[in-house]
């Protein structure tokens, strides 16, 4: 019932509504207020001391120049401020460190710090590969904007101190203004556009993460944000809600790029196609990517950001330390630095444009009206049924 209200709310209120939702989630988990270590405490001073002169091998996706440049900046700052050597291990896929931790199986790891979320986090947490109590051990975790952003649960898996939010992802489209004049999209208006400009609309092939989220946005819109989408998917809910999505896709696919006979393999590939003027839209999880790409002339001047009328599906990307990391103290200092005002500010205003997760820098304008993630059972369900219907 409450979620039916959701759609009718004006976008300005949506965020406030989300706030209620997050508070509700927190209450459900009975998140007790815990004492977080302070900057000037003995414990933290000891950590700082132990961290000096250490190297931190940070496993993070290396495909984005913006992120790489940001990490180069952080490396310089960390060396200056804490005498810590941050080394960015550029991986192509976030599963690479997961597979390594599995192979190491508890032996001293080659990884000190990793960039993680979603199913990789859930797996690592279940396997007991991650260092816990990060929220209490890191002073700056006290300033996380937990009341304003959905950053305590990672795709249905409570973080429980095994990872710390670093930034925010919000699903949006980067699109040509002339083709997408309306500031907000619905499933219906997208179909009209696809018909009017055939072969210029597409989405990354599920189970690619952006592609699945695109389908989730459509499902939310087509089902008027049915409250059952945020609970474990029952057989009945499945039978009632999903067919609408498939009927819609049956109508949409003939007008897609390559008539829906092929899809981009990733959001990055779709953006390349967009840059080369093959598409009228690309997808992104960074609400400010369009501005940054425009300022570096990667995309055309006429590019704008578009989101779905129900609000952008929002989640966090996070930092975690393996239990067997060789320099856990230094890794904690790095996380603490990453959550500092200076680092969060630079992350947002610098080349990257990733929104801040701390209270002091929280800014409505940095983020879009948010929509909560669907229950993770829907994620699996959408991927599997899509594969059955369209993937073969």
């Amino acid at each position: 019932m409450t979620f039916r209200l959701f759609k009718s709310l004006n976008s300005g209120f949506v965020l406030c509504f989300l706030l209620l939702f997050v508070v509700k989630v927190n209450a459900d988990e009975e998140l007790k207020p815990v004492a977080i270590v302070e900057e000037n405490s003995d414990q933290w001073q000891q950590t700082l001391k132990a961290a000096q002169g250490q190297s931190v091998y940070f496993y993070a996706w290396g495909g984005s120049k913006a992120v790489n440049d940001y990490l180069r900046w952080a490396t310089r700052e960390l060396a200056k401020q804490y005498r810590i050597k941050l080394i960015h291990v550029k991986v192509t896929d976030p599963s690479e460190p997961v597979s390594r931790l599995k192979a190491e199986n508890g032996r001293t790891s080659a990884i000190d710090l990793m960039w993680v979320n979603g199913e990789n986090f859930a797996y690592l947490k279940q396997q007991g590969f991650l260092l816990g109590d990060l929220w209490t051990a890191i002073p700056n975790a006290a300033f996380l904007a937990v009341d304003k952003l959905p950053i305590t649960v990672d795709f249905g898996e409570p973080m429980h101190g095994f990872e710390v939010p670093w930034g925010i992802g919000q699903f949006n489209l980067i699109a040509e203004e002339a083709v997408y004049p309306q500031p907000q999209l619905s499933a219906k208006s997208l179909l009209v556009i696809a018909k009017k400009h055939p072969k210029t609309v597409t989405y990354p092939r599920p189970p690619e993460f952006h592609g699945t989220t695109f389908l989730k946005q459509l499902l939310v819109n087509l089902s008027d944000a049915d409250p059952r989408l945020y609970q474990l998917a029952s057989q009945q809910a499945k039978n009632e809600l999903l067919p609408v999505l498939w009927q819609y896709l049956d109508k949409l696919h003939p007008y897609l790029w390559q008539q829906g006979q092929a899809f981009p393999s990733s959001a990055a590939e779709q953006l390349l196609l967009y840059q080369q003027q093959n598409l009228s839209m690309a997808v992104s999880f960074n609400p400010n990517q369009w501005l940054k790409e425009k300022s570096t002339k990667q995309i055309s001047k006429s590019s704008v950001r578009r989101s779905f009328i129900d609000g952008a599906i929002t989640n966090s990307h996070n930092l975690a330390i393996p239990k067997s990391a060789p320099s856990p103290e230094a890794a904690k200092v790095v996380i603490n630095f990453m959550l500092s005002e200076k680092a969060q500010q630079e992350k947002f205003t610098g080349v990257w444009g990733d929104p801040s997760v701390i209270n002091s820098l929280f800014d409505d304008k940095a983020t879009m009206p948010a929509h909560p993630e669907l229950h993770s059972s829907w994620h699996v369900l959408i991927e599997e049924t899509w594969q059955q219907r369209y993937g073969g």
Partner: protein
Amino acid sequence: MAATIRRIGLTSAWLLVSLISLLPILGIVVGLWPSELVNIADIKPFLAYQGLSVSVFMTLFSAIFSTLISLYIAFMVYSQYHLSRRLQSFEKYLAPLLSLPHLAIALGLVFLFSDGSLFFADSGLPRKGLSTLIIAIVIKEVPFFLLIFSAIGRQLPIKYWLLQGKALGYQDYRCWWFLVFPPLLKQSRLALLAATAYTLSVVDISLLVGPNIPELFAVSVYRWQSSFAAGDQGLAFWSNALLLILLAMSVFILYAHEKFAFAGCKALATQGSRFLIGKINPMFKAWLPMLGLLTAMMVLVFALWSFGLNWHGNWHSDGFALTQLTPKLWQDEWLFFALPLQNSLLIGLLAGLLGVACALLALELQCQKGKYWPDYYWLLAIILPQLSMVLGWQIMHIWYQGGYHSGWIVLSHLPFTFAYAYLVLKGPFQNVEPGYELLAASFGYSAWQSWWQVRFRLLLPAIFTAFAIAFSVSIAQYIPTLMMGAGRVTTITTEAVAIGTGSQQDLIALYVLLQSILPFMAFFVAALLARRFRGSMGGQDVRDY
């Protein structure tokens, strides 16, 4: 005493060679060892996976088809150039294309020629599709086969065969097809195996230009292997098992093709029937210039991108607004790519030299024994699925707790450089004219002297080619470098591959060019050097008898 030393030497040599060749098997056994996550019931969802049969068929078809097409094109090109004096050393023209990574070729191809590309609104070449994938692979494999043919051809008495054929009244093209093709095909069997195995399991190109409804099998395998969602590791195990079966099947198909081609040539030769395919041979004279043009266009595109050129018009307008060209990116990145480039160079030199040395050792040992082991055994590093194999090495490396340094990376590249060096050298090695060594023995040369001063010298052109290929193979390794080096040692490829998963065109182009520089130098220098040494049947001076 001398006999004992000799025996010890021989035994340790065998030990070394078997160790290197056993590494792939060891890796795949450890890497694929079923964990508690895998059980036989998982095979059901795997077999029920939508589109599996089409995906497997497409993958097998593209692997076999692109390899054979490349083989025939390369042979026809080779037959056009082999006897032309001016183009004798055509290898150096191949250097630029050989040194561009596969992915760069695919990227350049679709950017220049596919539907909605720079030059064509509707070229009939889809941005993603089986045909695009096959064309991209063929463009890259033909020069590879030409290089292999050239190494083999230097040790074969092709000129005599042609002369004999002509004396019997056969036209030129018939001589090529009936007399030269069968032995050349037999000698290049290893290269065929390598090319097929590569296409069967390649992920990056398949993701970029391959069809994905359904997706190619290698992509599914990779996706399951790198997913830790419930059930996916079980799927990964069974899909790897199927991949192994596919690899075995393609070995079988290639052997069958060889038999069939032999029989076909023989039948056509004896029947004296009209043989039309030979008539189109001359068309392939145009291949090298076309290839040169294509490569030049691709390099130009990448260079322009790396200097910040963008094609931004208004939506669907024809006018390109050229943003200003600037060397800023090169200046920015210079600080960061110098070290990876240096690491790549050192690792490549070491792994390449060791690979060639071990391949020569393996061949010599077999030659002394008088019995050659099956080809696929030596090529296991290339044939087996790389991700599982290297995962096995990674697990063993972790057990051993030997730290992370370039030594391990060289060792992890060695099976690959060894296998490629072996596949280049085997044909030439077996075909060294025995008369020369007999002559050397009659002059009182010791076995060692005769090996070093005669056989080794005769093999030099092939050795240069083998080294250039082994070196570039080492440069191109991503998975072993990352998994064994754990990020401690960055190479130009670990950087380039990571960048390649992003969407920043200028940076991707810059790293593509950087990644090509070292292999380019290796191929170019090898081609120049190879000209200066004659094989037992090649070289300038035997041309005009």
